[in-house]
């Protein structure tokens, strides 16, 4: 009986302690997987005595549908593909951000992207991370010189050794660049030419893979090249397989960006803005850049002070100005063109 009493007392004390240790507040964020790294989130939670509840999603459509079905106030923060910020703004789900609080003067100027983040002049989101959809490859299996020219990447020489990243937007951007069409100039008339290039790419590909499958394909030797890959695909594999690397071909690459914003209707707008400020701060940016889910370049240049030389080398920090000069932004089609591009992509997949 004494034992039972002791156990009950101990249990009660533990419960009291646990309750006492609970955060005073909660913040709900709809994010990509790189934000779920505890090394990124815990410092913010500790500094603000808050519990950040994170939910991952795939695809802007799924996120918008989820937000439409939620009550105002359910969600506080949204991480979204840079090119889709306007969709969230059109849907009226993002709140204006206090621009003076955003350290965009410290950013790589090429990724500030006011046209995306402030479509009507008001800032609704801020770029937090960027990288390239380009060519990842196994340096032991391919001729590295071949990787500098997109047309040789998907030539007969590498038939059956290519995997294509399963997202139509950057891959069609790369196909357009190989055809000499700037991503910003893609129109319905360009799709025939892009479709032919996609078709060639597809006929030489062994798979069209999501992030994990593309990494698995490279790591297991199933594929030697991933079209649409980049630092975000191979950086986390670098330690174990340094032969898995990436390059930006002569024709260039597509820059991906992700933005972060505060949701309209948030019941904790100040805390949500604090979270955005933390993520865009040099410390937060360094942690986000090297997240265990995927790596990518921080938008804020000052993150360099918080990254190790090895991390900067993997991110190719010193090459960024060159890379950004060669790279083009994601295609930004209107809704009709977007549907046509997606149909073309699905047609090509089901060849």
């Amino acid at each position: 009986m004494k034992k039972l009493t002791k156990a009950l007392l101990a249990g009660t004390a533990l419960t009291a302690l646990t309750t006492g240790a609970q955060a005073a507040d909660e913040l709900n964020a709809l994010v990509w997987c790189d934000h779920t790294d505890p090394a990124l989130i815990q410092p913010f939670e500790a500094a603000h005595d808050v519990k950040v509840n994170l939910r991952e999603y795939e695809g802007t459509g799924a996120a918008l549908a989820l937000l439409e079905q939620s009550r105002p106030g359910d969600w506080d923060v949204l991480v979204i593909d840079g090119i889709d910020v306007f969709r969230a703004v059109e849907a009226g789900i993002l709140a204006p951000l206090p621009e003076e609080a955003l350290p965009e003067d410290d950013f790589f100027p090429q990724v500030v992207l006011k046209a995306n983040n402030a479509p009507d002049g008001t800032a609704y989101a801020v770029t937090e991370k960027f990288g390239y959809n380009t060519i990842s490859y196994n340096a032991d299996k391919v001729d590295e010189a071949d990787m500098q020219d997109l047309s040789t990447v998907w030539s007969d020489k590498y038939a059956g050794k290519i995997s294509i990243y399963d997202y139509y937007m950057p891959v069609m951007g790369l196909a357009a660049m190989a055809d000499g069409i700037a991503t910003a100039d893609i129109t319905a008339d360009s799709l025939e030419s892009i479709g032919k290039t996609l078709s060639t790419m597809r006929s030489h590909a062994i798979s069209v893979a999501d992030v994990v499958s593309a990494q698995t394909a490279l790591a297991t030797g199933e594929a030697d090249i991933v079209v649409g890959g980049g630092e975000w695909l191979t950086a986390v594999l670098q330690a174990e397989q340094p032969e898995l690397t990436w390059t930006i071909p002569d024709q260039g690459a597509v820059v991906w960006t992700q933005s972060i914003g505060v949701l309209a209707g948030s019941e904790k707008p100040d805390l949500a803005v604090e979270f955005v400020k933390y993520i865009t701060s040099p410390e937060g940016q360094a942690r986000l850049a090297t997240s265990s889910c995927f790596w990518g370049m921080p938008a804020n240049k000052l993150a360099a002070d918080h990254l190790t030389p090895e991390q900067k080398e993997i991110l190719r920090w010193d090459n960024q100005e060159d890379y950004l000069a060669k790279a083009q932004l994601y295609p930004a089609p209107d809704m009709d063109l977007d549907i046509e591009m997606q149909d073309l992509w699905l047609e090509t997949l089901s060849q």
Partner: protein
Amino acid sequence: MSLSRDTLRGWGFTAPALIWTLAFFVVPFLVMAAMSLATLEGRTLVWGLHADNYRELLEKRYLWRAVVVSLQITLTVTAVSVALAYPLAWIIAFRVPKRWQRLALLLAILPFWTSYVVRSYAWLTVLSKEGVVNQVLLSLHLIAEPITLANTRFATVTGFVHFFTMLLTLTIFANLIQLPPNYRRAAMDLGASAFQTFRHVVLPLTLPGIVTGAFLTFVLCIGDYITPQILGGNTELTVPQVIMVQLGRRADFPLAAALAIVLMGLVTLAYLACARWLRLDRI
């Protein structure tokens, strides 16, 4: 007129199941059917009686191709799984001593204990160019260089068959052990060979178990997204994959709902084809 006590009690017992069916099947189905007749204007959902989504299904090659691919994969998986599961169930039911049967069944369903996603990725590794299968074939000098097994329809079918053979083994085993041994003995006494006994006695009597398992395989396989997505390498698209694209990027719920209705139509056809032999109580 007052309802008798028995009637009230009957309603009391069936009400939870009825409410469950209404809330989680009938109402969602009606919403989905209505959604399939709605349309998107810009990004705005417009309710109404539009046939646009079904017309699109006929006009866009990749959409009806997805239906064909789904059917081809599902029928192949069902046929191969039945062909593998029947002998396995037979051996467990009639060849394995009674005291080992439970262990044999446990071993047969062991793969169910691991995560479906993990199992699919495991198959991807096994079937890759550096994987076990290619390494064994190479070491036996049966092939000169690694062959492509992963990211193919073969890989998708293999992943499915691994899972559904276990399911079918259970349904067929349940049917086989209900078969009185005297039936087989009587057939043999009357001069039937082992094959004739199987053909004219055992097979017809175990057909309900086979068809029930095959129907479940059809239903689960045709609606599965994970296996073709991971193992098929997007080399061809199935209906669930196309549905996910509509939802993930476009948020085109009307077209996704129309595709889901088509899937339900295929399942209904399968049910009608199997209805004569279906004995769901035998599971």
